[in-house]
């Protein structure tokens, strides 16, 4: 223990030296989102520039701070000035920024997004004062984008593994009491109280117990877990160590997907480090507690995120759920008691241990304490990963944090592909497990997809149900066949081939699938249908009765036409139409042959956004009289 205290001190000193000395430091966001935005190339430029101008600077690769729309992010700290952040850095401007700011000492801080740390600069706003960030509460994402995820010493300097040290000094039952009192609920979707899960497992007698971290994250578009692992892998490991100590775990697994190569590399690297620092393996920090963690890569089936499937998958069987009870906490991997927790749940645990349950209870509302991360995407101005206290209203998230929509807002889907759609009228719904269930949706793992008036809810429901149907493991009848019929019906409605009883059928099938499916996948699959039927029934009726798609999305129900008066005859559309449906001599109004038109939208886009085009192509519904 004493040895570790020494290490903690050294790390703090080093961290202080890095951030508060006269040294020049460049921080670059290198999580998957940063890399996708070109961070790798920016890194090369930075290194070249440093060399070129013989700058004495250190480059620190950090994770993602969550403001994905601003990536790549490059922060610079110089002698005397705090760390300030530049957004949307490109290959082209990286050198200029460095040259001007560091070499020529030109004050370009106004071009930056804000500063970090306690000291301000020239009236610059703090980075976290930005509209997207100021309403957020960063607990589990505290270190993301701030520290180097590849360096355990950064983590330790920021209170890392202090939670573990505290935990090891307590009795497991005490920890369970704290976790239960803190009120944290599973962040993987179902929101089951973590303390109770741990207690059940702890109280089940067995020579072996397992702890599994569910890092499968199968929701399309969700990236909270990936971001957390890539930006702060040690938080997860510390949480796992605490959990394992508490439940009496003997072996640990992190189940993730092969499509997360960076996360896997970062985890592997972190695992090597904790072993080196004596934080994993035999007799951890001299406490007598031993624990090992292995990484398992899954093949990426959505259903493998379901806990019993996940267990089967680790056992080398087909990823297919089984009926619960028995719950994994009683009989899980290899028939032994097993706790499965989500990445975010485990990543939060060290904070509770460090700061105490009362501290944690200050966030959120009764029954839904703490913070939750969401991936805010869709037709939203500021997309990215956010962390807010539970109980925050959707309105606040969408308008204050996300900056609202460009076109009129229509609905927001929470909880991933099997979540429900929530309309404008219910935007004051607080984000709690119960109130989301009340409005027909779920918390899920935290996906938030914002939709504006250009979204057709029938098409949306069809899209999600199609996804779910394809991911159904095929074991149980309602999910395998029921969702198939639902998709067929939705497709017919979208194609204008609906029959009058379709909506009733849709509703009764949805209820059947929900009530009788074996696992959570089937049980939640109809949510997109049921919620849109509940809040946007009129739109369905328009599709069914009038063969009319008000959002002008369903291709069978719309038509493209050229408004002759507006057409400038620029021929732009002629060049993009893949089927040659548009003809016409230059400078004369063009002709659009609806029989050839495949409704690919290419002409529409070019006609609206090309400078010389006249915005003459319009899409209209074919209302049946």
């Amino acid at each position, binding site marked *: 223990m004493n040895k570790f205290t020494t290490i903690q001190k050294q790390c703090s000193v080093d961290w202080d030296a890095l951030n508060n000395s006269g040294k020049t430091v460049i921080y670059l966001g290198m999580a998957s989102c940063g890399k996708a935005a070109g961070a790798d190339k920016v890194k090369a430029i930075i290194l070249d520039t440093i060399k070129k101008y013989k700058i004495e600077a250190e480059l620190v690769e950090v994770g993602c701070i969550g403001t994905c729309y601003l990536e790549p992010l490059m922060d610079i700290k110089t002698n005397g000035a705090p760390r300030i952040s530049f957004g949307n850095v490109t290959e082209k401007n990286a050198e200029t920024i460095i040259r001007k700011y560091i070499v020529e000492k030109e004050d370009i801080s106004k071009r930056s997004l804000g500063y970090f740390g306690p000291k301000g600069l020239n009236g610059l706003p703090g980075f976290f004062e930005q509209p997207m960030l100021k309403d957020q509460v960063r607990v589990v994402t505290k270190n993301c984008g701030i520290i180097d995820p590849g360096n355990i010493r950064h983590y330790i300097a920021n209170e890392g593994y202090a939670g573990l040290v505290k935990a090891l000094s307590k009795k497991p039952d005490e920890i369970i009491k704290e976790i239960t009192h803190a009120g944290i609920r599973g962040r993987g979707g179902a929101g089951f109280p973590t303390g109770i899960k741990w207690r059940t497992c702890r109280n089940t007698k067995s020579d072996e117990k397992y702890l599994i971290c569910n890092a499968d994250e199968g929701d399309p578009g969700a990236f909270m877990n990936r971001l957390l692992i890539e930006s702060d892998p040690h938080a997860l490991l510390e949480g796992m160590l605490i959990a394992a100590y508490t439940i009496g775990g003997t072996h640990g697994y992190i189940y993730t997907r092969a499509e997360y190569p960076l996360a896997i590399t970062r985890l592997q690297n972190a695992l090597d480090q904790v072993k080196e620092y004596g934080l994993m393996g035999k007799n951890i920090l001299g406490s007598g507690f031993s624990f090992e963690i292995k990484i398992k890569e899954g093949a990426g089936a959505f259903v493998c995120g379901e806990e019993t499937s996940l267990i089967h998958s680790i056992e080398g069987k*087909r990823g297919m759920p089984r009926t619960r009870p028995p719950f994994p906490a009683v009989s899980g991997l290899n028939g032994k008691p097993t706790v499965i927790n989500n990445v975010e749940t485990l990543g939060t645990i060290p904070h509770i241990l460090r700061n105490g349950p009362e501290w944690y209870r200050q966030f959120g509302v009764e029954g839904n304490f703490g913070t939750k991360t969401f991936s805010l995407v869709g037709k939203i101005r500021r997309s990215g990963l956010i962390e807010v206290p539970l109980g925050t209203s959707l309105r606040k998230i969408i308008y204050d944090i996300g900056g609202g929509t460009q076109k009129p807002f229509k609905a927001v889907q929470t909880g991933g592909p099997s979540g429900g759609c929530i309309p404008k009228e219910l935007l004051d719904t607080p984000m709690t497990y119960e109130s989301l269930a009340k409005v027909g949706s779920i918390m899920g793992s935290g996906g938030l997809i914002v939709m504006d008036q250009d979204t057709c809810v029938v098409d949306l429901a069809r899209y999600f149900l199609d996804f779910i149907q394809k991911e159904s493991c095929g074991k149980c009848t309602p999910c395998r066949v029921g*969702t198939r019929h639902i998709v067929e019906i939705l497709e017919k409605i979208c194609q204008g081939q609906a029959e009058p009883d379709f909506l009733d059928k849709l509703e009764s099938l949805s209820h059947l699938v929900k009530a009788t499916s074996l696992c959570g996948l089937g049980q939640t699959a109809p949510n997109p249908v049921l919620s849109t039927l509940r809040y946007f029934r009129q739109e369905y009726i328009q599709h069914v009765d009038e063969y009319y798609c008000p959002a002008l999305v369903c291709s069978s129900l719309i038509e493209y036409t050229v408004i002759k008066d507006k057409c400038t005859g620029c021929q732009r559309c002629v060049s993009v139409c893949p089927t040659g449906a548009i003809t016409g001599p230059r400078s004369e109004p063009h002709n659009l042959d609806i029989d050839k038109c495949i409704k690919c939208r290419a002409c529409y886009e070019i006609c609206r956004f090309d400078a010389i085009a006249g915005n003459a192509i319009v899409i209209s519904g074919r209302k049946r009289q």
Partner: protein
Amino acid sequence: MKITIDNKKIKIDKPATVLDVAAQNDIYIPSLCAHPELVPYGGCRLCIVEIEGRRGYPTACTTHVEDGMVVRTDTKILKEMRTELTQLILSEHPSACMMCDDVEGCSVFQGTIRKVGITTGCRWCPKDKDCEFQRIVESLGIHDLTLPGLYRDIPIEKYDPFFDRDYNLCIYCGRCVRICNEYRKSSVLSLKQRGKFTTIGPAFEATHIDANCEFCGACVSVCPTGAMSEKSRKWWGVPEKYEASTCPLCSLNCDIQVLTLKDKIVGTLPPGVPHEAGGELCVKGRFCLSELVNRTTRILEPQFKYKEGYGFVSWEVANEKAVEIVKEVKPGRSAMLLSPSLNLEEIHFAKQFAEKALHTELISSSCINENLLAYMEMASHSVSLNDLKKAGCLLSIFLDGNYKYAPVTMLIKDLASKVIPYCQIGWTKDTTTRFATHFYVPKSGDVEGFLDKILFNLKKEKAKTKQPIITETLAETKNSAMIIGPEIMSLTNCISILDKLKQVAKQSHSMIYMPNPYGNLDGLLALVDVVPFDEIRKKIDKKEIDLLYLVGDSAFKKNPGVMKIIYQNAFPAPEDLQPDLILPTALWGESNGRYLNTDKKIKKSYSVGDRHGYSLPHRQVFLDLAKSLKVKLPKFSAKDLRKEFQLKLKPVPEKIKVPAPSKNYPFSLVQENAQHVYSSLNLSTGIEGFGDLVKADHILLHPSDARKQGFNNEEWAILGSSKTEKKFRVLIRKNIPKGIVLLTSSNGQLEFESNPCPVKIRRDHV
């Protein structure tokens, strides 16, 4: 424990599922995926119930009863949902057999003068009227479809032997997958793909043969629908009777049930409830028996070879002719050859007839040689299969468990999966190999040395040489057991190898278990003082034999030089044998009889099917002939069976040196002689499906060995040793270890100078 189901108060004394308790108390809950031998699955969702205090609709098959539980099985909503769930299944499953307006009339008016293909009409499903799904639909009173059909149009699979698969009829109960994995532990079937493309079969689109399917048929047995059907049974429809009997196709003499329709044997199943029992049969007992008895080439009438050629004769005439032949031959100048699959009664009367009417003691069988006698002598110390269950560790030696001895391989798999050490020595990977901690493949020339080393280690205080594992497990576990396979009989120096094994067993205090591929060889040896077949052959060569009486054994391809041959069998003689008299006999299933199995138990088989043509049971033939010859044959009594028998073995023959593979002859050729013979019919050549599995006169190679030589399946290869060169077709099989060439020859003769034998393979350039 007390629980309430539908207001009925029920007392329970042991843990059970709600579904089981309901069934025991005559409360019907529809169920499809539940199966008594398998872990609850909860896939079909038909057994949903309501339980007070529980959310939603738990499934009865996966819910264990708890004290005070209050269950409802028949509320309005449950019934509605069950119907809707069934409608979902019906929307994918063809339903003409249930929903057609003419369902009633269809079967009644099927008689027509038109051809079969038409008279079977649209009721094409092989399980029609024997289908669990039909019964469920009926019990729910469903008469119309409420959902549009979503036929899946999956291609029908007919390319594997013995059963066809039409997964369009599959309802995904998963029973086949589970019986294959959980019960038979074969791991061939699995659910594949997801969503609407979900289907069932071996991984990676492999055929069943390539996926090492045992063709035990357990999956076919438990399938509630027509998705899986037996090729040979699919035309017959629902059997009328299921009768208990015994399988005559190897020395295990498994219990089976025989399915008959209008007194015709249409199939066989393991004992138990037909749609439930996974069973312990191998492919022979499960699929080959009915094909055997129904072979179209069976002899149906007695025939006599006149000067002009063969003529059909009545039994009276046949009897007269037989008497003439017998009287013509001097006492002691006859020899009788018996099939080792005859039952005890048949062997008894044959022996009595030989002694009393032919006055000869020259009785043998073409399979009987010194090696076999030595094997059987050792096997007389074999423990029973039940004793084997107590084994603390297992060593199997030259037992090729592919397609045979299923109860033994299942026992091995079962014990090995309970963490009992299991080592295997042999030349083919079989269904047990996955469970072996160690699998040794001795090369040519290495067999005896290998055993010597084990023996050497066992005799030493502490083991420390090349095979410490085997020695350690044998020496250090209580109740060690050695399972020795009959494949050993065709090895060079078999007798000395057996002797070594005997010493290993003695040194390690191991029990031994030794099955053989003959239905009643144990019975034959317990009843008759047989002479080796070679002795008879020699006597024939020396012109000391005038009459050869062949009973279910054809032995020679052509007349070996005797005056007369009487051929008594159900299957025709080889073309050039030209017997003087041919007497058609009944087969298994057509007369009562008993067998002595490896466990030394007497097993009964019964007459359940009509005899074919004018055939008579062997016993009847002998009794009738004896009557005509005015000889009395005593009755059979089980007391006649010798408990202990000392075989007259010659002193150990001189040892032959088996060379090791070399640069020029890099492969080890191992020859397994096709011993799957029933009443002179070789299953490999006589039954198409079995021939696909155990291909006679082919050499089997590991894929990478085949690739190196550039071979494809069925291509000709020349196999050469330093002395012999022969041509065979190639078959690529994953279960052959690298460096091994496996040959099964149909004539039972060794093709090369030693076994194993170092060989090289090259292409036949034509």
